[in-house]
């Protein structure tokens, strides 16, 4: 591969990746994930691309890009997205969605419920539990009907070790940094090692199990959910997996049920079968009420 112009000569020498190539990558990545890198992100993107080029043994951007575009089976795409996105979990991450749950979504869900029917919420992926526990805490703290309505919280992750840690409910200070002291005191015990352990009653009230949203047989044996939190996962999937996941989300949702996606994700990540609903605190995606 010989550089044909000064543009590439300047780049391939190691200073960076040519602007034209970054633009090419940006368009591709945007179509694939919905994430658009503005010009301020040039350094971050360049660094990540160079890491991936080195990791996959491609000396130049063209050959890496052609590999990614034509030959990758999804594994490299997954690593690339991981490298380019912030992927940490902590209590009350994107907390405006928990506010939306209580302020806007649950009232609509309750309008449809028959007396005695439980409300079912699913957190997938639940990772090490921060999200489902946050949902539980939000309900206990902020939902007026929590004492009179039966709520089931289910939580699943493909990572069995993560699910195990979620059941243990043990967290460091960084994971709980968004929680008010009052909330921390009310639902956690401090351990000798300075960590925080969620109260047994909360740990026992959540159904944790391993699960894979891309498994076509997933809907079998699952109850119908009223609300699903599926945040910052679909973005890592290739089209085929994302389509399967979206099908599963649709099939396990009750008519009129809602899905919350990650803040960088939009309806483009799921299917046109869902309707985008804009609430004061957040967007959510609703399965039509007339559906079955």
């Amino acid at each position, binding site marked *: *591969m*010989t*550089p*044909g*112009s000064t*543009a*590439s000569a300047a*780049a391939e020498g190691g200073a960076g990746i*040519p602007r*034209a*190539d970054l*633009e*090419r990558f940006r*368009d*591709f990545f945007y*179509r694939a994930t919905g994430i658009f890198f503005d010009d301020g992100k040039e350094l971050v993107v360049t660094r990540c691309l160079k890491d991936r080029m080195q990791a996959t043994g491609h000396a130049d951007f*063209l050959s890496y890009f*052609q590999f990614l*575009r*034509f*030959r*990758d089976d999804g594994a490299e795409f997954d690593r690339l997205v991981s490298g380019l996105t912030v992927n940490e979990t902590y209590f009350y991450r994107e907390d405006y969605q928990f506010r939306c749950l209580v302020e806007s979504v649950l009232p609509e869900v309750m309008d449809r419920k028959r007396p005695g029917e*439980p409300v*079912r919420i699913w957190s997938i992926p639940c990772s090490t539990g921060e999200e489902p526990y946050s949902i*539980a805490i939000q*309900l*206990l703290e902020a939902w007026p009907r*929590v*004492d009179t309505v*039966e*709520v*089931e*919280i*289910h939580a699943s992750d493909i990572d069995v070790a993560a699910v195990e840690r979620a059941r243990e409910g043990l967290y460091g200070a960084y994971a709980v940094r968004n929680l008010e002291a009052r909330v921390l005191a009310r639902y956690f015990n401090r351990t000798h090692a300075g960590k925080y352990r969620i109260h047994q*009653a*909360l740990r*026992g*009230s*959540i*159904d944790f199990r391993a699960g894979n949203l891309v498994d*076509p*047989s997933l809907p*079998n*044996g*699952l*109850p119908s959910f009223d609300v699903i939190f599926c945040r910052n996962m679909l973005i890592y999937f290739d*089209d*085929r997996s994302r*389509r*399967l996941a979206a*099908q599963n989300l*649709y*099939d396990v949702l009750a008519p009129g049920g809602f899905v919350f996606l990650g803040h960088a994700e939009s309806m483009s990540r799921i*299917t*046109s*079968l869902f309707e985008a609903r804009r609430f004061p605190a957040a967007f959510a995606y609703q399965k039509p009420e007339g*559906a*079955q």
Partner: protein
Amino acid sequence: MPLSPPRGPGEPPEAPDPATLRHWLEADNPARRRMAARHLAGTPEASPCLAARLQVEERPEVREALLAALICQDDGVAADALLGCLRSPEVSLRNGAVEALQQMPEAFAVHGPSLLADPDPQIRQRAVEVMRDLRHPGVPGWLLAVLPTETDPNVCVAVVDALAEVGDAGACPYLEALMERFPGEPVVALAAGEALHRLEGWE
């Protein structure tokens, strides 16, 4: 605590046999049709009945399951049915077919590229749209080959936009020649100019 531990899931119901599922594809109940399509995905010899149902299905959630199932089948019958849907007057079915074909690169490669020579520029444009996200190494060559002779400016713009992403510097002379063929179409010059800017650094 008011939050109750959930009861475990029930036993998963047995999936019906393929003959029953094929029958359910024609059921009055759309939820049953959708379920049949989901269960038939990936089963042998399901492509013909899935393809046939797609031609007449109007419910969007069933259509979606049929498209997903055909992608799973990933065979010639499925690809041909989807290529046929590119001619549908219904835009949402066409779009669904484009997205599905993008997921079946080998099956599409058999008859899909010949659509670039279809007499209807709308069909040619849809073929380009499939290729825009198709994971097949033949894409750059197929697209490049039409540039000298494509007469529709919208198709040219679509081809050039796609080449700007997947092509290399070998496309540059073609792009320059294209600009000369469409002197009265500023949008063609805009497309080609941007593509040249992106591609010329590469050999």
